[in-house]
């Protein structure tokens, strides 16, 4: 599916790719240069493929709270919340960002590949008194990311640079039902914008025309994936699946067990107690190579497979190949104590060692 900014990307000779049926830039120039620009200055991403829903009705926050892992009722209006949407087996339907725009209305940002499934899931599980609208069609989504984002955001003249981290706003001039938040998926400061063309196209124009003065590069999905992986952030379909729980993926921070019950909670807790439960861990390669999704993880003492890579990449900031993998709990215990693992790439075993997430401590994760 072509998205509204596709003609602009083609004009810039972007390398385009198919992502869950959406035609999006993979890279404009170089994935490494675009990622570097985001870490050092700024990058602009087209994220129009992401889904944007609006749920409205009496007690909508309480009803949504019964479906998500974190506590939406504890978060004030205009503040973003990260949550998982579990299925009835404790696995994961999707991961989401939610923010209430008023006492009885909540905006929800969902992954492109899950847009239809999420909508059906939410519709089926919310009472009829709650209306659910998919605002995604024809909308433009933009992510401005990087340490220079505040200066660049000030070019927009909307006073966005005064927003706090994770603050969200829902109108732009005369246009309502937009989403503007100080959030992102790169580990850097920045903003995300979703809304109809009339509101967001002018934002794109200003950022793409004047951002370059501040070192901003347009960036594609390649850089976006590398940057999120450097932070150890999960990607639905790789780290998160209908079988994996938030606990398996190490997203315990996004699960609030003290709030009221939510769908899938008991199953998630049951799964957490399973002895053979595989868990996600970070690793770095000790030899030259790039791990990729589905590469087997081997126990070097037995040669047996003890896991599988979910995401892998090469980063000059991490110093080589690195990634995330699900590993068998018995092996993982040894791996955590310093034992090496073997990652099989093109039929050859590469030595790997455990690594904390994030892989790169800068941006918002920097200890200040």
């Amino acid at each position, binding site marked *: 599916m072509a998205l509204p900014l596709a003609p602009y990307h083609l004009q810039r000779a972007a390398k385009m790719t198919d992502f869950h049926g959406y035609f999006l830039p993979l890279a404009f120039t170089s994935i490494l240069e675009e990622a570097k620009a985001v870490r050092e200055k700024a990058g602009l991403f087209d994220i129009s493929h992401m889904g944007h829903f609006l749920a409205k009705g009496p007690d909508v926050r309480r009803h949504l709270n019964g479906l998500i892992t974190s506590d939406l009722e504890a978060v004030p209006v205009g503040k973003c919340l990260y949550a998982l949407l579990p299925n009835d087996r404790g696995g994961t339907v999707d991961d989401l960002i939610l923010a209430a725009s008023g006492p009885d209305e909540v905006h929800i940002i969902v992954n492109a590949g899950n847009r239809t499934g999420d909508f059906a899931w939410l519709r089926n599980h919310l009472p009829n008194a709650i209306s659910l609208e998919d605002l995604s069609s024809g909308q433009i989504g933009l992510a401005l990311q990087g340490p220079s984002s505040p200066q660049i955001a000030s070019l927009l003249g909307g006073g966005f640079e005064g927003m706090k981290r994770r603050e969200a706003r829902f109108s732009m001039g005369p246009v309502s039902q937009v989403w503007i938040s100080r959030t992102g998926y790169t580990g850097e400061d920045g903003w995300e914008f979703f809304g109809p063309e009339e509101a967001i196209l002018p934002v794109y124009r200003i950022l793409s025309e004047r951002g370059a003065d501040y070192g901003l590069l347009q960036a594609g999905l390649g850089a976006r994936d590398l940057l999120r992986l450097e932070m150890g952030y999960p990607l639905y379909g790789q780290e998160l699946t209908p079988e994996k729980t938030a606990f398996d993926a190490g997203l315990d921070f996004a699960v609030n067990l003290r709030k009221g019950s939510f769908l899938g909670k008991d199953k998630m807790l049951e799964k957490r107690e399973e002895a053979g439960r595989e868990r996600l861990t970070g690793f770095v390669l000790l030899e030259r*190579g*790039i791990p*990729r999704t589905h590469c087997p993880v081997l126990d070097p003492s037995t040669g047996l497979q003890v896991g599988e890579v979910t995401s892998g990449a090469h980063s000059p900031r991490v110093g080589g190949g690195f990634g995330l993998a699900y590993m068998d709990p018995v092996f993982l215990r040894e791996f955590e104590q310093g034992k090496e693992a073997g990652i099989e790439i*093109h039929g050859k075993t590469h030595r790997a060692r455990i690594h904390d997430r994030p892989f790169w401590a800068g941006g918002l994760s920097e200890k200040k």
Partner: protein
Amino acid sequence: MSSERRYTPTHEWIQSVGDPFRMRVGITDFAQKEITDVVFVELPKIGKKVPRGAEAAIIESVKAAFSIYAPMGGEIVGINSAIESNPALVNADPYGAGWLFELKVDNASEWSSLLDENGYRAHLSSGSVGGH
């Protein structure tokens, strides 16, 4: 056989380096653009015999791994060690400093079945670009 550069449908080039049996192999400009940021190249060992069409090297880019096939059969007699320390040469100068390996070819007649400049251009514009 001449010093003319010839091509494969999978976007390798091959060219004599003077000695008519000693041929240098690399990837085309189209291929380097498709592959983008080369992070490193897994080069074959000198002395390795590679049949025509067999995988002879692997280029790892930020995007993915790409197999490089031998355009002609032969023995690996040279590798470009400069790209081991500076893999970006493959992107910057694919027909020059970014070459991959040299082959001592077994059967010089295989040359005639490779694509010439016009044939490779036609292959690119036909849209049937596979391989990489």
